[in-house]
C-alpha cells in the first residue's frame, strides 16, 4: 500500500511531496541549515525525486522549521519554472542548453552521475541487445520479440515526453539521435515508466538507473550490463549528470540544500540510490 501511494505521488507529477516530521534536533557540526527557516520549493527531473526526498526528510527531521517540497514534471519543467521564479531549485537530468543558461542566468550544480538503462519486463527472456537493434526497435523497424531471441510477441514501446531529460540523453547516447516510432506509448515520469514496464510483459522502455528496481529487468547493451560501476569505468556509455539549477545565485535555503547534497552525507545518499557520487 505504501508503495502504491508513493508511486502515485511521483507518477502523476502532480502532488508535491511535502514531508514533515517533528524531529529531535540532532545538530551536526557544520550543518548548512543551521539558523535557516522557511520553505524550499524544488521541481523538475523525476530521476532526482527519491534521493532528494530522503535528503529532505533527513533535513526536516533535524530542522523542523524548514519545509521542503519536491515535485516532478520533467527536466524541461524544472528549468522553466526556475526561470520564471516559481521554484527555488530546478532538477534536471540533462545539462541546460547554453540558450537556457543565458536567458535565465542559470547556475548549474552537478551532484550525481546516473546511467540510463534499457528495461523490459522481468518475465522477458531477452537479456541483452545490440545498439543497432536498440535503434531499430525504437524506430519501429523491429516489432517482434522473436527477432531479438524472445517469444513470438509484439514489442510495446514506451517513451517519455519532450520535457524529459532522460529522453533527451537516451535519444542522443542510446539511439544516436535515431527516430522514435510514433506508435510508442508516452509516460510522464521515470516512476511511471517503471510501473508501465513492470506491468506489461512485452514492454521495452528506458529509465534512470537510480529509479530501476527488481520490478523491471535491465538489458545489457552490446554485452555491457548497466550499473553505477560500469558507468564509472566508462564501459556503459548511456549516462548523464544529475543537476540542480538556480536562477542567479542561490537563495540561502537553496544554497544549503546544494551544500547538503554535495556533503559526505549527501553523497552517501546519492550512492545509496544507485547513482555515482561526484565527490
Amino acid at each position, binding site marked *: 500500500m505504501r508503495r*502504491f501511494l508513493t508511486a*502515485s505521488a511521483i*507518477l*502523476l507529477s*502532480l502532488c508535491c511531496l511535502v514531508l514533515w516530521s517533528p524531529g529531535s534536533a540532532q545538530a551536526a557540526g557544520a550543518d548548512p541549515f543551521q539558523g535557516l527557516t522557511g520553505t524550499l520549493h524544488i521541481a523538475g527531473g523525476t530521476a532526482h525525486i527519491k534521493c532528494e526526498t530522503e535528503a529532505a526528510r533527513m533535513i526536516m527531521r533535524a530542522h523542523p522549521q524548514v519545509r521542503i517540497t519536491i515535485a516532478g*514534471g*520533467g527536466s*524541461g*519543467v524544472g528549468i*522553466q*519554472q526556475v526561470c520564471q521564479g516559481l521554484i527555488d531549485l530546478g532538477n534536471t537530468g540533462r545539462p541546460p542548453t547554453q540558450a537556457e543558461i543565458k536567458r535565465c542566468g542559470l547556475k548549474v550544480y552537478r551532484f550525481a552521475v546516473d546511467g540510463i538503462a534499457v528495461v523490459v519486463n522481468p518475465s522477458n527472456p531477452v537479456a541483452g541487445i545490440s545498439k543497432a537493434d536498440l535503434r531499430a526497435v525504437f524506430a519501429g523497424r523491429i516489432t517482434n520479440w522473436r527477432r531479438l531471441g524472445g517469444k513470438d510477441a*509484439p514489442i*510495446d514501446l*514506451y517513451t517519455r*515526453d*519532450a*520535457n524529459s531529460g532522460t529522453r533527451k540523453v537516451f535519444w542522443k547516447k542510446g539511439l544516436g539521435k535515431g527516430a522514435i*516510432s*510514433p*506508435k*510508442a*506509448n*508516452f*509516460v*510522464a515520469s521515470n516512476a511511471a515508466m517503471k*510501473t*508501465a514496464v513492470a*506491468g*506489461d510483459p*512485452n*514492454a521495452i522502455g528506458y529509465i534512470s538507473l537510480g529509479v530501476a528496481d527488481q520490478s523491471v529487468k535491465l538489458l545489457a547493451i552490446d554485452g555491457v550490463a548497466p550499473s553505477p560501476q560500469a558507468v564509472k569505468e566508462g564501459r556503459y556509455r548511456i549516462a548523464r549528470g544529475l543537476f540542480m539549477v538556480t536562477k542567479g545565485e542561490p537563495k540561502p535555503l537553496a544554497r544549503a540544500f546544494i551544500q547538503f547534497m554535495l556533503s559526505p552525507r549527501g553523497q552517501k545518499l546519492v550512492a545509496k540510490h544507485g547513482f555515482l557520487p561526484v565527490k
Partner: protein
Amino acid sequence: MSQDTPQERALRAGLGLAALLAAAAPLMILAFLAYFSWPLLTSGLLPRFFTQTWNPAAQQWGLLPMMLGTVWVAGLAMLWAAPLGIGLALHLVLFAPRGLARLLQAVVEFMTGIPTVVYAFAALFLLVPRMRGLLGGSGFSILTASLVLALVVVPTITLVARERLEAVPRRQVQAALAAGADRWQLCRRVLLPGAWKGLVTALVLGSGRAVGDTLIALMLAGNSLALPTSWASSGRTLTSHIALIFAADFASPSFKAVFLCGLILFLYSLALVVGLRLLQGRRRP
C-alpha cells in the same frame, strides 16, 4: 424602482458585477487564446498543424492524431455513457422505490465530486491489466480510457436528465396514467417527448466533460503520436497533448501549438453551446 432601499441597490450592483465577471471570464479566455494563436493563424504555418506527424525536431507540428484521439476517446465514452446515464435517470424517475432512488441519487452526486485522477489511478491497476489480457498490446488504449471516462460522464448526464424528466408537467403524467398507460407507454409517449431537449442538453454537457477531461486519457490512453486506427490503439487527446508539451520552450512553434489545441477545444465548446441554443429555439420533431 424609486423606492429601492440602499441595501437593495447595493445587492443589485453586487449581483450585476458578479454576473458581468462570470460572463466576461470566458470571453477574456477566448480573447487570450485568439491573441496568442493569432501569429500562428496568420503566419501561413496553419496548414502544417493539420498534418499527421508531430515531430518538432523535424519542424513537423501535426495535430491531427490528437484531434482524432479526442474524437475517439470522447466519442466512445459518450457511446457507453449516454445509454447508461439516461437509463439511470429514467430508472430513478419511473421505477426505483423511494429509498433506492434517494440512495442512487446520493451516489451519483458523490460521483460528480470524485477527481478524475482517482478514477484514472484506480484503473491503472484494476483495468489496464485486464485490457491487456483482452485486447493484447500494452493495455493502454483508447478503449481503456473511454471506459473510465464514461464513469465520469454518467453522473453529469443522469443528474441533468433526471431533473428535466421530472420537469415534465405532472398533469400530463397523471393524464397518461389515468388513460391506462403502463410505464413503458408513459416513458415513450410522455416523458421522452416532453423532455427530449433536456436529454439532449444532458448529453451535450456530458460530452463537454468527456472532451475536457485530461488525466484519464493522459494516464490510460497511452499517448502515442500515431494516428489512431481502432479502439485498441494507443492514442493522445488534445488535452493530454497540452499537458505533455506544456513546459517546452515558450518561443517555439511547439508551444504555440498548445494555444491552437486550446483554441480548438474552446471552439468545440462554443459550437456545442451555440448548437444547444439553436436547438432550444426549435419545436420538437
